[in-house]
């Protein structure tokens, strides 16, 4: 039982150290960290000296250390929240090491006790090992969790929650410090108040751990959902626009038919001829061309992908860009959420159209290629070559156009970086800017 309690206490302390270390509020430069480490060491030395020669003993030792630390931080920071966080951090570190020390004592068959209860037998060797183990454990936890959880989550509401619950848990530790030696009788048994404090602390740590984990899980799903909602909003907007484009085509046809009727009704063959071969043939060229563009899309069986290509394609045609879409084989399913693929395609196509529009050749080629295990979307457009390395385009805020926010490709990268089964290849030549998005099938 004691063993389990101590193990729980150690884990909990490590967890708090980890949380505090990862909070935004705690970040400082390496240089500062080193300075504080030295100051901390000095305080520890003062405390030890005070214990050895000043006659201070019992729970006053850790309290003295904390007190000195707080004074130091008040001088340095003058920020209440930071001081609170640092207090929590240091206490957790102290307690973690103590619990670890007691745990080791249990393991090697000694009587566990808090530091301040030792007089001469405090084994510096074991203490050092414990110190290192706790810090390493926090580091390992950081490594493991950093890959799986977005650390930014820790910086919001979770932080306040953590400070409060850590504070409550730590209250128990101090109760133990203060009342550690007090015995009282409960029925026929004599109970050490310190043990009760340990037990309460252990229970609250488990509760807090569970709550935090659930909170993080919830927050993560919420974030993904938010991302999806945003991309689908953009998609719906695109869909509306493409519907609008279709209506314009319809409207044009009706107009043509009406004017033809007018010419026929008036019986003026000459003006009819002029209209048919002159104005109309020009118009027809555009309309027919648009038709040609659409016909290659019938192989796409995913309506979202199809509509975004129709919309962006007609957008390009309106800007007089020579646009072609090639889909030779049926495209039926993708291994990645369609909304995300649409979002990426939207950004890539917007960029391609923007770049092609200012060139002389004005060319845009789009292809979807069916491979056995993947689909490849190729977007190739002419561009005005610029003397930037291609990696520059992916930086936040970089844009070749003035006033542009330059978030597009940055967003694309953050998506391909987070989602399995999406691979982006970017290539530039003197003439062309080529993007290849490979989407895994399963």
């Amino acid at each position: 039982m004691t063993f389990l309690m101590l193990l729980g206490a150690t884990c909990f302390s490590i967890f708090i150290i980890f949380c505090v270390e990862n909070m935004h509020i705690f970040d400082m430069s390496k240089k500062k960290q080193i300075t504080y480490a030295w100051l901390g060491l000095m305080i520890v030395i003062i405390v030890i000296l005070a214990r050895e020669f000043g006659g201070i003993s019992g729970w006053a030792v850790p309290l003295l250390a904390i007190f000195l630390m707080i004074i130091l931080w008040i001088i340095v920071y003058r920020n209440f929240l930071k001081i609170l966080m640092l207090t929590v951090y240091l206490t957790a570190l102290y307690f973690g090491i103590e619990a670890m020390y007691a745990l080791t004592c249990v393991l090697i068959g000694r009587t566990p006790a808090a530091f301040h209860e030792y007089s001469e037998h405090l084994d510096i060797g074991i203490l050092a090992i414990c110190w290192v183990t706790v810090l390493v454990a926090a580091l390992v936890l950081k490594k493991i969790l950093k890959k799986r959880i977005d650390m930014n989550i820790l910086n919001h509401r979770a932080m306040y929650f953590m400070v409060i619950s850590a504070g409550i848990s730590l209250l128990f530790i101090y109760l133990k410090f203060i009342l550690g030696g007090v015995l009282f009788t409960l029925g026929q048994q004599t109970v050490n108040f310190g043990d009760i404090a340990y037990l309460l602390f252990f229970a609250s740590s488990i509760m807090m751990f569970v709550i935090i984990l659930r909170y993080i899980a919830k927050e993560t799903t919420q974030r993904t959902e938010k991302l999806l909602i945003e991309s689908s909003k953009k998609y719906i907007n695109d869909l509306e626009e493409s519907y609008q484009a279709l209506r314009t085509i319809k409207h044009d046809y009706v107009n043509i038919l009406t004017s033809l009727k007018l010419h026929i009704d008036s019986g003026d063959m000459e003006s009819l001829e002029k209209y048919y071969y002159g104005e109309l043939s020009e118009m027809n060229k555009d309309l027919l061309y648009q038709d040609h563009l659409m016909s290659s899309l019938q192989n796409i069986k995913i309506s979202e992908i199809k509509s975004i290509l129709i919309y962006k394609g007609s957008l390009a045609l309106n800007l007089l860009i020579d646009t072609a879409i090639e889909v030779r084989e049926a495209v039926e399913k993708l291994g990645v959420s369609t909304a995300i693929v649409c979002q990426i395609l939207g950004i890539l196509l917007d960029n391609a159209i923007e770049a092609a529009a200012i060139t002389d050749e004005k060319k845009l080629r789009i292809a979807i290629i069916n491979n056995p295990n993947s689909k490849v979307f190729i977007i190739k457009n002419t561009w005005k070559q610029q003397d930037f390395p291609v990696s520059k385009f992916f930086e936040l805020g970089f844009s070749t156009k003035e006033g542009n926010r330059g978030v597009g490709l940055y967003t694309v990268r953050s998506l391909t970086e987070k989602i399995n089964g999406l691979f982006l290849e970017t290539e530039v030549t003197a003439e062309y800017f080529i993007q290849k998005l490979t989407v895994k099938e399963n």
Partner: protein
Amino acid sequence: MLDIYVCEDNEKHREFISNFIADYCIFRNLDAGIVLTTPYPDYVISHFADAQNPALFFLDIDLKAKINGIELASRLRNLGKKAFIVFVTTHSEMTLLTFQYKVEALDFIIKDNQSDIKKKIGDCISTVINRLYGNSKPETIKITVEDKIIFLDMDEIIFIESTHIRHKLRLTTKKRILEFNGELKTMEEKLDHRFIRCHKSYIINKDKISSINKKESTVILINKSICPVSRNGKKLLP
């Protein structure tokens, strides 16, 4: 010796191309020559299947035979030998992205302009000769992006980094950025001495460093990318 094949159904055109190639090789004293000119794709396949030398093919796309040039090309590729393929065609729509992607042609030559053809054929032959026998035969590395295999010249690679997802890497050259599945450790083994693991998430090309910032433990590469350097990585820096 580089074997050159011409497969073209139009007799006049076939002659024009092969005559030009023969002249080009003789005048420039190149170690290359035409071994077969034919309108029949089957002949090309059977001849190439027995051949030993690396080969350069000039193929028409519409061959008026059972298979077209594109299919012929993919069959030649499947033989797994060193083959360079150039399409000579009137079909401008055949120069589609889909085909470019699938057969990895060295080039597409449009027949319409005669003088242009000559220049382009010449360029193709020189490129291939250079790639095969050039002094600075570049070291390449093979990268697989799902179904696609890509060969990259090592001296073009600036750096390789890991991403948020396990096993997904990103490779940057001056003109190209590639994302693919792999591990930095295996990449490190495949690359040569020019490359160093300056950080656990980065492999950089030593030749592409533009400056080193010791104070902040970073390297700035020629494409202005900034890479972090770990303590172990510092020892590897020049």
